[in-house]
């Protein structure tokens, strides 16, 4: 502190050299900010360039509509991967999204204060738990459970197992729930008290105020939370790879193994030599993931710009 004070006092007396140093410092800071922009641009350019050459080599038609992904045989049907990614992510949002929002509503609006803090803390830990840990727990416990469930439905002779879209969706739902809970939590907590008071003054109960006044008031941010959850689920790699089964074809039902874009990328990247078609098509497929997150960012901008006008 004393040193800082001395330096503060000394400023005016010293002249040009110091001003020069300050200028350099400012420029360095500006360079740091520019670096973020350049890094983003570089990621997009590199991925797009490699991805486009992959598309050129494998053909856009095969990559989007072909149903057999077998790079070693020169067959690049990307449809199972895209379907797998979208289906598991959608399932995750359906299973984990609505419940999480209502749970957040209960924790913020209706629960006692200590429950509220504890709830949030557990959810923070839930966000931070590594995805491989989720994946391993699901592999050891959820998959056998689902296998017996599937056998119960389809009969013992049917070719069903625990791995597949059902397991991946359940797992992803569990993984994105904490994120959605925390985002909704913050959204609901920022609803002005006057809105609630107005509702109470009309004789509306607390539960109904929460469901029909508070939730509709922040619907944009809740929708964003769901989008965000969808994006995370679609991009999730390791956990899904552990429970999806890894069969590179369209599944007959929810309990048959299939694959997703990210799971296939992480498996194939280990064998594909860089620069070959096998490697490039993986970049082409990852463009779908890029597209999903760009759409997410656009949705965020659109929805939050509109909500600025609202009170």
């Amino acid at each position, binding site marked *: 502190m004393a040193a*800082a004070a001395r*330096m*503060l*006092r000394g*400023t005016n007396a010293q002249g040009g050299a110091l*001003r020069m140093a*300050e200028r350099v*410092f*400012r420029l360095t*800071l*500006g*360079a*740091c*900010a*520019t*670096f*973020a922009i350049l*890094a*983003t641009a*570089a*990621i997009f350019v*590199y*991925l797009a360039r490699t991805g486009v050459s992959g598309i050129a080599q494998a053909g856009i038609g095969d990559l989007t509509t072909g149903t057999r992904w077998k790079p070693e045989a020169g067959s690049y049907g990307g449809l199972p991967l895209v379907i797998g990614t979208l289906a598991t992510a959608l399932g995750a949002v359906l299973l984990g999204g609505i*419940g999480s929002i*209502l*749970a957040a*509503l*209960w*924790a913020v609006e*209706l*629960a006692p204060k200590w429950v509220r803090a504890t*709830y949030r803390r557990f*959810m923070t*830990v839930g966000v*931070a*738990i*590594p*995805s*491989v*840990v989720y*994946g*391993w*727990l699901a592999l*050891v416990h959820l998959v056998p459970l689902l296998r017996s469930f599937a056998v119960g439905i389809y009969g013992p002779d049917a070719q069903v197992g625990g791995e597949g879209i059902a397991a991946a969706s359940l797992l992803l739902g*569990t993984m994105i*729930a904490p994120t959605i809970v925390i985002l909704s939590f913050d959204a609901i907590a920022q609803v002005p008290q006057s809105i609630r008071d107005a509702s109470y003054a009309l004789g509306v109960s607390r539960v109904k105020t929460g469901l029909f006044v508070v939730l509709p008031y922040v619907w944009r941010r809740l929708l964003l939370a769901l989008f965000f959850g969808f994006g995370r689920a*679609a*991009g999730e*790699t*390791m956990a899904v*790879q552990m429970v999806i089964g890894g069969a590179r074809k369209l599944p007959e039902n929810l309990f048959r193994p299939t694959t997703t874009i*990210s799971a296939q*990328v*992480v498996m194939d*990247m280990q064998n594909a030599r*860089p620069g070959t078609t096998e490697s490039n098509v993986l970049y082409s497929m*990852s463009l779908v993931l890029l597209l999903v*997150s*760009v759409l997410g*960012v656009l949705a965020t901008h659109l929805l939050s710009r509109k909500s600025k006008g609202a009170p």
Partner: protein
Amino acid sequence: MTALASRPQRSIKRRNDRTGERVLYGALAVLAAIVLAPYVVGIVYLLAAGAMRAGAFSQYAVPLQGVSGETGYRLLLSACMGFTLGYVVGLAPRAVLARGKSPRPRLAKALPRVLGLLGALTFALLLRDHMPRFLLTLPSETKAGGGVGPELFNSVLLAALSTLLSAPIGVGAALYLARFARAKRFVTLARAALDTLASLPSIIYGLFGFLLFVVMMNKGYSLFAGACSLALLNLPIMVAVSEESLRNVPRDLEDASLALGTSKVRTALFVSLPYAWPGILSAIVLSIGRVFAESAPLIMTAGTTVSRATAYSTDPLRGGESLAVHLWYVNSAGLAPDRDAVSAGTATVLLVLVIAVNAIATRLARFGGANGRGA
């Protein structure tokens, strides 16, 4: 008058309402419990399942496996564990000593730190050959009894490397955006870039890191490539949290400094930054937690192997798997007969690390913000 007349009906209606209300409340509470349950059960289960494997203390030959650098690693590990233990033990008497006294007595303030140092010394000098075996031994592909020593070392090394890369750039960018940027278009662009970076799935960073740091650098899988990819991954959160805590610096403080004739740069460096420091530190700690947790980008940039010769080498240009990668690798390619026990132990170590990091970040964040300590 009419209100009096209609009272009986209304009270029936109200009673029905109240029942419905109670049902709705109960349903929501049950739902919240269902959402919460997996995490509580999972955490408790993991701590119970892996504790045996991860925490078993035993005596063993010195040096354990004749790996170079293992002694240093053992010293480091025992010192860290000793410090943690001493610090935690010191927290309770500090609370007792400082009760009701507004500036904490100096003794109470220093107690956890002193005990921590004592613990570190004791552990490093006396107990370094009695650390949990699991945290020291090399992993094993085919035989039972593998540990995660090099993996833990690699995780810490990766965290250090990527923080070294991302912290200066992140804090610098945050400072620029919060205090110096004048061109509105530039700020919008930078924010859009950071938003996009934050929303990219981690595997994208792996693909990019593979192209740029593995293929173009032509050194094969390396910790440096992994650290660079993770530094990029952590950049947006670093900027966002630092900027947030810089924006929470009270305007008066800065105005006072500026009114004394201090330049903007100096005010930022010696007034704003120290005030926002706890928040910035919490950003750094959070990003360390993400390094521990991340696996997909590391598989594609740092590889999935541990070599005996360089197990504890600090050379960043060697490859090596981290704890999280190990957990995946054991389950997808491992042949060891005890892989469930190894996985449980690894998962428990990871969980303990992540929870500890999170707790530290939360504490730090509480120091900053509105009730900050002042400059």
